[in-house]
């Protein structure tokens, strides 16, 4: 089943056409990668899909519903969650609390309930805390639960941010350069983590520069250049695509 469908999407910033006439699909249960040289429009596309920007033209369908006009929190509420290229953890909060924020869409207590400290909120808070801790255990970072999130190592922060996204119980997870700034060991672990996420039933769309990671875990790859799609295929075919090689693939493992 097609989970995400991008149809003929374009976005222009003043004189720069960041994305133009872009179309592709993401099938449920797969891992799809977006690659392309810098400035190819990958992050813009992520911003468009996740609701942080509205496209000039085109449509974006998620689970059959047109979502291009929705705001980011509405899209997140429908099961499409993203992480950020430059880690955006909440400062002044522990790692556990950061993940607890991710449970927001699956909890109810509002302003009045909060102010009055109603009894149903006590159970809800406890469940939020437990579920968040479970996620940390799943990701292997449970030891750092009470540590201030921004004081963790870079690799650990990336995992926390993914944990926060997982707490939303998304159906589609957008990972923006998850391996950026990671060493080889951490990159391998990230690859295993992404595969584990896919095995949990979550579809993954990722932007990545690390070709070994991309080739290893992706089911399909979309190649962008100057805002346009120049190829969409399985990894082995992409490696052999002359257009792609010409535009982009410099070193490959």
């Amino acid at each position: 089943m097609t989970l995400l469908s991008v149809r003929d999407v374009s976005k222009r910033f003043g004189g720069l056409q960041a994305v133009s006439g872009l179309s592709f699909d993401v099938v449920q249960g797969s891992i799809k990668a977006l690659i392309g040289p810098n400035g190819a429009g990958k992050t813009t596309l992520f911003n468009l899909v996740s609701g942080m920007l509205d496209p000039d033209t085109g449509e974006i369908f998620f689970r059959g519903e047109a979502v291009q006009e929705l705001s980011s929190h509405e899209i997140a509420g429908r099961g499409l969650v993203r992480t950020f290229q430059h880690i955006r953890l909440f400062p002044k909060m522990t790692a556990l609390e950061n993940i607890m924020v991710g449970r927001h869409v699956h909890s109810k207590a509002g302003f009045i309930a909060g102010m009055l400290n109603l009894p149903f909120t006590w159970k809800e808070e406890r469940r939020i805390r437990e579920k968040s801790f479970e996620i940390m255990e799943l990701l292997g970072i449970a030891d750092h639960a009470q540590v201030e999130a921004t004081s963790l190592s870079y690799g650990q922060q990336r995992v926390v941010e993914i944990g926060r996204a997982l707490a939303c119980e998304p159906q589609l997870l957008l990972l923006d350069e998850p391996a950026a700034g990671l060493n080889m060991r951490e990159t391998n672990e990230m690859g295993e983590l992404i595969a584990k996420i896919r095995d949990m039933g979550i579809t993954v769309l990722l932007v990545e520069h690390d070709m070994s990671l991309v080739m290893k875990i992706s089911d399909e790859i979309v190649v962008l250049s100057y805002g346009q799609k120049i190829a969409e295929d399985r990894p082995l075919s992409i490696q052999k695509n002359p257009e792609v090689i010409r535009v982009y693939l410099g070193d490959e493992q």
Partner: protein
Amino acid sequence: MRTRYLPVAAFAGLIVAIQLATHFTDSAYHLTQLTMTAYYSILIVGLCMLIGYAGQISLGHAGFFAIGGYISAFLTARDLSSIKGSGFVSFLSKAGLLVSRADLYGGSLLNVHPWCACVVAVVATVVIAYFVGGPVLKLRGHYLAMATLGFGVIIYRIVLGTEFLGAADGISDVPGFPLIAGLEVTGKSSLRVSNYYVAWGMVILGMLFLLNLIHSRVGRALVSIHGAEDAAGAVGIPAARYKLNVFVLSAVFASLAGIFLTHYNGGIGPSEASVMKSVRYVAIVAVGGMANLWGALSMSLVLNYLSLRGYFGSFDDTVFGVILILIMLFAPDGLLRRHLFTDLKRLFSGGAAGEEGR
């Protein structure tokens, strides 16, 4: 939860201690300014929530104070006897919303009951706050500051220039506000002690609500919005809606402060809506540590009391202006930063941060 409520109990103890101290030193007249300080503090803690937790500046909060105070004053002090026969008045009368009282000269007045006036004032505040807050909160930086400043000045000009709101003289002869069980908010010196406790009781109730909110799911969401707004949106937090809600909440706090202080003082004047007052409130929140409710409350207690007792003399406004400058120059996160306390706590508890954390 114990760590949350312990300071509240301690503060309540402080309030009682102060009252007993004035009782035994025969200086009960201090209670008057302390009671007024309490009402201003309600506004201050609400504003602290807005500035510290929603991350929004408001240089026009005195405007909401004035909206509450003036509407309540107008409805409870304006004599409806002249239009007694009209359908509107008889409707209000049948609904039990009117009250008769005697004026200074023995004539009879027909006014709206303070409870009804209070409800109308709060509802009006909520409507205005949603209406103004929506577009204003989309602004950033100095645009937001100027917009809120402008809002405050508009309210000031309206109350200053409108005849039926008393123009420069304001509205006086506002009756007391009867609460429950014989308690009444009024300036009568015979009821000084009970009024002191009523006022500070309201402050404590307000603090309880806000402390609960901070430690709730919404409070966590607010901190996340303040920390990284787009990341918060990316995990499903409706940032704009929450910020607006906090804005309205802080406006209601300000409005209630205005309502009750007006009944306590027996009147209100346009100076309560002035820019100077708004700046003063921001200065107090800033000194107290932008996101520190207890800091804002303690600073409010000290500074408002000193100001009301006249300790600053003719330099009253100057003092707050200077405080604001100094804080913004040297300690823009405020003196009593939220993490100063948690940092100290960690130091003393040997490094293990408690489960309740924040």
